[in-house]
């Protein structure tokens, strides 16, 4: 056992990353934070819409996009792969909505149908046309958070901004935060109560597709930057943790960002300690925060929730 788990040395785990290795750690943590924030903010709405696993779905359903992009461009370069994945991601979300709306199948089942079919189409395409070329998400699309410090720096107007993928992800996160701020009411009302949204003159369908388009961009950019596991987890964990701590939506969004930041920092230290994949360590840190929140606040909240549901039921019976 002692051989498997590295010794916990305070100096190596907590001090070195912020002194000697500062120039690597800072970008890894910032990247983790941006990915977790962008995913977490979108994720809050996904949880409300019972679509939390759509990230996992997209991680599979981008395969045909990659295959088609390769067959058209003849290249496994980053740009064609990214564009192919983006289109396939958008198609997935549209397909989910169409299946859900047209067939009365619930969202989770619709997600299941959409992504497995698309993934299967991808496998068939590769078997038929490209079996001699190594072509899958892992090989041509997914990035690795640990390698970000090796990318070199982007400079703008004489200022060193940071590694290119961190700068890109920061922009994506900024846009997500802006959109969530600007269309706060529309997103909230249409997520909670489409009927009320309709009466307020909000086009719920449009809002849904806009949210899904945003989701596709966030998810595929993040896959390209840090790989799948961190993205899939951070669509759910920050929002789910925030739900345990508050029922007020603005507070939940704030807590989401806090969870994102803590996961990134704690994940870095966990990853350094265990010398393991940093993305996986950030996910485990995020899960740890969720468990902590559930242990401290979850019990009361569950009770309060049941109580209010019972009240609701009573109210309905009264009708």
């Amino acid at each position, binding site marked *: 056992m002692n051989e498997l788990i590295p010794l916990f040395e305070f100096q190596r785990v907590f001090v070195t990353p912020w002194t000697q290795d500062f120039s690597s750690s800072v970008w890894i943590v910032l990247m983790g934070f941006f990915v977790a924030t962008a995913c977490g903010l979108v994720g809050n709405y996904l949880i409300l819409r019972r679509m939390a696993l759509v990230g996992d779905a997209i991680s599979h359903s981008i395969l045909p996009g990659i295959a088609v992009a390769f067959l058209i461009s003849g290249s496994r370069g980053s740009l064609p792969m990214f564009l192919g994945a983006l289109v396939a991601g958008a198609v997935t979300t549209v397909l989910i909505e169409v299946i859900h709306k047209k067939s009365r199948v619930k969202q989770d089942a619709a997600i299941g149908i959409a992504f497995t079919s698309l993934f299967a189409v991808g496998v068939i395409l590769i078997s038929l046309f490209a079996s001699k070329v190594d072509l899958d998400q892992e090989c041509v699309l997914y990035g690795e958070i640990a*390698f970000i410090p*090796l990318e070199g720096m982007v400079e703008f107007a004489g*200022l060193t901004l940071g590694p290119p993928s961190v700068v890109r992800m920061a922009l994506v996160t900024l846009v997500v935060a802006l959109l969530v701020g600007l269309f706060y009411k529309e997103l909230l009302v249409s997520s909670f109560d489409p009927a009320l949204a309709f009466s307020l003159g909000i086009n719920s369908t449009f809002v849904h597709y806009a949210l899904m388009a945003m989701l596709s961009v966030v998810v595929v950019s993040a896959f390209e930057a840090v790989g799948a596991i961190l993205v899939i987890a951070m669509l759910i964990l920050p929002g789910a943790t925030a739900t345990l701590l508050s029922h007020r939506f603005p507070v939940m969004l704030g807590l989401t960002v806090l969870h994102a930041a803590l996961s990134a920092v704690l994940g*870095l230290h966990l990853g350094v300690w265990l010398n393991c994949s940093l993305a996986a360590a950030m996910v485990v840190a995020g899960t740890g925060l969720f468990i902590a929140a559930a242990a401290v606040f979850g019990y009361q909240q569950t009770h309060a929730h049941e109580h209010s549901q019972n009240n609701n039921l009573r109210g309905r019976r009264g009708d």
Partner: protein
Amino acid sequence: MQLSRPFLLGSALLLAAAAAVSTVPSSFAAERKIRVTTTTSMVTDLVQQVGGDRVEVSGLMGAGVDPHLYKATAADVSKLQQAEVIFYNGLVLEGKMTDIFTKLARLKKFVYPLTEGVPEKKLLEPPEFEGHFDPHVWFDVELWALCAQTVVKGLSEFAPKDKAHFELCGKAVATKLRTLHDWSVKKAAELPKERRILVTSHDAYNYFGRAYGFQVVGLQGVSTVTEAGLADMAKLVDFIKQKRVKAIFVESSVSPATLQRIAKDAGVKVGGELFSDAMGTPGQMENGYDLGTYEGMIKHNLTTIVGALK
């Protein structure tokens, strides 16, 4: 943007340090070892062979690690950052990581894909996708000897003073590989031409087949997501029966289930486990060779194949 101001100083310092490092080798090389970082275990072995005690090689992918399944750790980042010279296989064997190597090559001068030493006309490519070369070059020992020259070139460019030394080591390695190649040709010749049919799990042995006169049939494609179709399996079973192939082979890094099924359907035995994308554990001996070395890997594969097909 506010954040980046403090880092301006940091990155300037970093650049200065990088510049300092790149001027060091000519004066330092004789006294201390060159820090080299490599990817797969085959690359690590080759660099160790050529560099000998002048290099300190740290490989990112250990024994038995499939490059497809490799995940980087925090320590790997420092290995790459502190490396003075980096060698990798190339031809997209390392997948998306190749992007990082290209970026590093722009910042640092000493980053080399070993396969750059192999002329394009000697590389195999699927006819329908020109330019997407098969990366499993190491199974043709002669081509691997060409890759050894890339190591000589890389180390000499980093430490020009030691150029003569590395060239000498390179020659010794080339001779060793020549002997291994001759041994392989002789070993393969123990089988009559019509018996030299190699049926395996995935398409990793095309160079091997070309070099040692085997017809190679892989059950699944190169990518890990593709699976064998039913028709492929039936065709393969017919093929095995028709050609009276005596044994087929599983690979150390691919699940053996489908291949075992085919062996059962075709009524042939599974001839043993071959190494494909990674070598064995260092120190694991078999018939006098170490499975954790390139030589051991090649000898194990050929002995297993020839033994089972005889």
